[in-house]
């Protein structure tokens, strides 16, 4: 009952302490974990977005610069001038002089016919009237194509500008060096998994990607997912890992510059930090659990030992209270009995006196009278002895201090009882410490106590057995124990063993006063008397006598 109370208390304390200390820790840990991840992701996204934007601007600037060059050439030269291939060639050189990056240059008239061409390819003979870009440049005035293979069977793209010169409309068309253009885009490929490329609005690669495909092949990018300006999306890439894609539209939303990065590549630092955080939190949790369990166990153990000490003290207090009350009562009862006993004894004496008279001497019942009177006197004597014992002990309680050698006292007592023990085949063994000091105590009373304990032990064994008597010194006490191998004392009787008139002996054999008197004597001497016994295993009475140093004479 008590045990479950303690363990439920222990559980409650542990649970509450853990709940109160772990909950905020874990909550804080989780918050930091997710907030940090969120912030880090946002940061990465922002970074990649910024890179995409910057790269798109660079590409845009490049294209605009080429358009500007081409446009100004067209505007500053007449159709006739440019159809002269020498002149065109000269112009082409000037354009390429400072990083023009043009591969070729051609002049096309309003019916799509190549009128002049400077460049490495044999494409002057082609008519572009039916090409889709021809209509567009004719109507809009400027045109940048998607990448295509065209007549020359190589991926490239062109820039074309229209010139309205009097009634004459013509087109100046140039091919951009795909290598140079691709290089500009690829410069944004960073890290182990970073990629940068351009796709058109159908998702066809316009530049060579680092991974995932060839130029003019279909990419996995769905351009419709990307909104205006710059958009960042997360998607699974081919190898199953998540990647971040940042796309910026350029060239009037016809091209999408994409910068991609595997999430894990960028997140390595984050993962390391998160891993570290989890380790710190976990070790904190472990430390808290360990400390809580240990301190709770310590607290509960201390509580248990305090409780048991308190119970012991209470039991002792109750015992001495009870015995004091019983002692008072017994003394009162004894006094009340003594007076009638005195009267009875006088009356029987008187009767004896009268029996001596002649009238009675003649009576045939004289002997009967005498016997009866003797019996009455005998039993009055018996009652008188009980009362005298009780009163005598109660009276003689004030200890008379003298120099006492406990071992001597034990030996004397043992020698008194040796014959009695031997007659019953009982062996008395003594194991006495040689370190006992001489103390100031009452030898007669101590002998009385030892006599009671040892003769009780012998009576308990009845026939054949062993009584062991030992004396030990421990700090402020001399401990004398008397151990028998008799039948032992049941627990319910142990509680009453020191009560007056309580006896386990047959009626008439014990007064039930011996242990009570012993208890009172030892208590008056400032000591303690106790009993340990299990049924079937004998009993051990232990007497603790305080070591009081005798005054120097």
């Amino acid at each position, binding site marked *: 009952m008590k045990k479950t109370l303690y363990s439920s208390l222990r559980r409650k304390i542990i649970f509450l302490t853990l709940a109160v200390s772990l909950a905020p820790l874990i909550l804080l840990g989780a918050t930091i974990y997710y907030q940090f991840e969120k912030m880090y992701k946002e940061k990465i996204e922002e970074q990649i977005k910024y890179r995409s934007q910057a790269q798109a601007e660079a590409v845009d600037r490049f294209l605009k610069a080429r358009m500007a060059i081409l446009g100004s050439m067209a505007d500053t030269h007449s159709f006739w001038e440019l159809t002269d291939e020498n002149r065109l060639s000269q112009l082409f050189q000037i354009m390429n002089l400072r990083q023009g990056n043009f591969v070729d240059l051609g002049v096309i008239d309003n019916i799509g016919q190549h009128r002049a061409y400077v460049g490495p390819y044999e494409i002057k003979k082609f008519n572009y009237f039916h090409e889709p870009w021809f209509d567009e440049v004719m109507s809009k005035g400027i045109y940048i194509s998607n990448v295509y293979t065209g007549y020359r069977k190589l991926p490239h793209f062109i820039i074309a500008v229209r010139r309205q010169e009097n009634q004459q409309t013509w087109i100046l068309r140039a091919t951009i060096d795909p290598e140079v253009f691709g290089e500009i885009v690829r410069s944004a490929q960073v890290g182990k998994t970073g990629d940068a490329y351009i796709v058109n609005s159908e998702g066809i690669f316009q530049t060579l990607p680092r991974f995932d495909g060839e130029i003019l092949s279909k990419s996995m990018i769905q351009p419709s997912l990307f909104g205006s300006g710059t958009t960042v999306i997360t998607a699974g890439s081919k190898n199953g890992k998540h990647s971040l894609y940042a796309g910026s539209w350029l060239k009037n939303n016809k091209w999408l510059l994409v910068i991609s990065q595997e999430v894990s590549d960028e997140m390595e630092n984050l993962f390391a930090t998160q891993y570290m955080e989890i380790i710190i939190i976990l070790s904190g949790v472990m430390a808290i659990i360990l400390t809580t369990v240990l301190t709770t166990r310590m607290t509960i153990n201390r509580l248990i030992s305090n409780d048991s000490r308190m119970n012991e003290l209470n039991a002792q207090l109750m015992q001495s209270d009870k015995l004091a009350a019983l002692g008072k009562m017994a003394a009162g009862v004894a006094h009340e009995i*003594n007076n009638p006993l005195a*009267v009875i*004894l*006088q*009356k029987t004496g008187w009767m004896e006196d009268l029996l001596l008279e002649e009238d009675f001497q003649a009576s045939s019942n004289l002997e009967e009278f005498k016997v009866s009177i003797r019996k009455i006197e005998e039993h009055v004597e018996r009652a008188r002895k009980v009362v005298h014992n009780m009163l005598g002990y*109660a009276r003689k309680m004030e200890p008379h201090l003298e120099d006492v050698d406990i071992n001597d006292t034990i030996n004397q007592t043992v020698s008194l009882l040796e014959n009695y023990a031997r007659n019953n085949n009982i062996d008395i063994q003594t194991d006495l410490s040689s370190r006992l000091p001489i103390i100031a105590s009452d030898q007669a009373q101590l002998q009385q106590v030892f006599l009671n304990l040892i003769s009780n032990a012998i009576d308990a064994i009845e026939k054949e057995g062993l009584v062991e008597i030992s004396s030990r010194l421990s700090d402020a006490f001399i401990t004398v124990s008397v151990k028998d191998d008799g039948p032992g004392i049941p627990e319910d009787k142990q509680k009453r063993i020191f009560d007056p008139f309580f006896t386990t002996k047959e009626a008439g054999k014990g007064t039930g006063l011996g242990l009570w008197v012993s208890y009172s004597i030892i208590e008056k001497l400032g000591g303690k008397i106790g009993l340990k016994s299990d049924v079937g295993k004998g009993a051990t009475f232990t007497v603790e006598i305080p070591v009081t140093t005798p005054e120097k004479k």
Partner: protein
Amino acid sequence: MTIIQNGVIMERFKVLVVDDEQDFLETLVNRLKKRDIDTIGAASGEEALKIMQDNLFDAVVLDIKMPGGMDGIETLREMKKIQPLAEIVLLTGHGSVETSIEGLKLGAFDYLLKPIKLEELLVKLSLAFEKKDLHSHKIRNLKIKELLR
């Protein structure tokens, strides 16, 4: 009891018994009387003192614990004032051994624990008488010497 000294019957032994327990008192008086001791009983200290005003006693048997009236020690003190030579034997029960010792200091002859056996009392009484007699002799001798001077 007849006291015989130097082969001469000197006088009868005179004893006063004081006890508040009527049955005890009566019986003890009867038993002493039966043994030829001139005994008078008194049921309280006051009564005892009154009797002592008029009669000389060799010995007094005094119960030291008499609730209600005058207590034993007080009675003893008064008795010693009236008849300093009367030897007083105290009867004591539980709780009065100390009182008895106090009584001894005040000049009581001895004490007995109740319940008593008559034989013990008789022994004490004869011892008390011897002592008293010795005292009386000494005093008488002193007086004679004084007269002879």
